[in-house]
């Protein structure tokens, strides 16, 4: 009897209550929005920080390593395959840096010659980098620009006069 009375009272109170379903829905909606935005913020932060660390880390490490390369063009010897052909250039390159490097290309003025020769610290190219010019030959007393580039992007430019 008492239980039935209590239940009737409760129903009556709820019927007269001003709190509606809208309040619950609003709270739920706000909860969902906050959770969703927080998740988005978290995911964005994780991915952004990761991307930054990846890019910056690669840049720092690669630049830091490349900065330790020092290329010294010790000597450039101008000669020819015949008495009057001024068409051969021999380049001697020394590694005066603190890490080994690999020579990727040599430019004689603006003509590209590709190589793949690794030079250890303190050493010189085991054989001179020999280039045979085909179209434009070198000339006595003309300035010849020799550029040596490594695979890490270090570039050294020197000028020589045959």
């Amino acid at each position: 009897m008492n239980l039935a009375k209590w239940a009737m009272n409760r129903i009556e109170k709820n019927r007269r209550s001003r709190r509606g379903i809208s309040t619950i829905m609003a709270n739920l909606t706000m909860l969902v929005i906050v959770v969703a935005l927080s998740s988005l913020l978290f995911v964005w932060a994780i991915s952004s920080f990761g991307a930054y660390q990846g890019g910056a880390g690669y840049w720092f490490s690669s630049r830091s390593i490349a900065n330790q390369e020092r290329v010294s063009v010790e000597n450039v010897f101008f000669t020819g395959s015949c008495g009057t052909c001024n068409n051969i250039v021999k380049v001697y390159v020394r590694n005066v840096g603190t890490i080994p490097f690999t020579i990727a290309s040599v430019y004689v003025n603006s003509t590209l010659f590709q190589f793949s020769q690794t030079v250890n610290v303190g050493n010189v190219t085991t054989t001179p980098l020999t280039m045979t010019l085909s179209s434009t030959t070198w000339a006595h007393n003309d300035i010849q620009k020799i550029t040596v580039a490594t695979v890490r992007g270090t570039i050294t430019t020197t000028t020589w006069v045959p």
Partner: protein
Amino acid sequence: MAIYRRFVRAKKGMSTIFGGLFFIILILMGFNLMLWGFIQYDNYNSSLFKMNQNDQLATSENLVPASPGAQNLTSTGFNIPVNNLGGTTVSIARIYISNISPTGGTKCTNSDPNSQGPCVVDSGLGTQNCAGNGNCGFTNGNVAAGVINQLIHVTGVTLNDGSGYKVILSSTRGRLFSFFYPWPVNVNTGNPGGQFVTNIGPLSIYFDFKSFNFTQGSQTQSQSAFCVPTSTTMVLWVYVANNAPDSGVTLEGSTMMEMQPYSANGFGQFVRTWIVSPTSINPASITPYNQGTNPYFLPAAPANGAGSKTPVYFGGAAQGGVGGVNLGNTQDNWLTFMGFYYIYRGQPQGETIPFMDLKSTAGYPGTC
């Protein structure tokens, strides 16, 4: 107890705590990222700093080869005198010797089967038999700061065969220090000390040890001509300056030089040569003298003394000719005269210079 009661009655729930933790995690992640960035940047900067120090040491190297470039020449080696005027010790890693005027042979050229290019001289016992005399090496290549006249001893190759050589000293830090051998004549127009000058008319003729020179083959650096090789075609250099402030001087093509050997016992045994063009610095580049198109013109002297010295090249077999000067195979002393003909203030004039003695020898330069 009060804190516990406040906590129990607190209206902030778990969501607040979780929210706070979430926020703190985000902040810590940001700090962690910043810290990581600082560490990376610090590593990068330390690498830069270390390499900058190396670069500064390299730029503070200042090794100066001293005259005559190569001395104590023997059949197996020579010494290179050097002065270290820089602020740090210089260690020579390698020496390159290139024959730039192969009139004495093919040594240190591409045609040389030993070197097949420049002669490469490495430290110690060397690594390359660059001249056919055993490995080419050098010792005494560490030069302390401030040292004067240290001798770097090179073995396995010599330079006294009459060719012209370019010598490059390469340091372990990548710096290059070079010189030419024979040592180029030092022409100092501002200081006549040590120069013997004859002034006749408007002309000053310099024929001291530094100013009377010759070249052979395709040499571009001249050497003293008081001793010359026999059986060698040469171009003789004489330095001339104009002393007259009122007019320039143009040399005429009849300007010539005559050399008579001491052993001659009659007239006619002379060697004569005429001036050639101002671009004829060696026998390989001789062109005839053309007074009209490319003359030797000595501009009027400034008010404070003689004008700058101009080299005049003798190598014509006749007036307006070419061919060079060749004293034949006679080893002798040669009494030498010069006749200068020129146009001064529009008037042709001439003068004969009493000259001196020069020597020709087959074993040049060893038997000079």
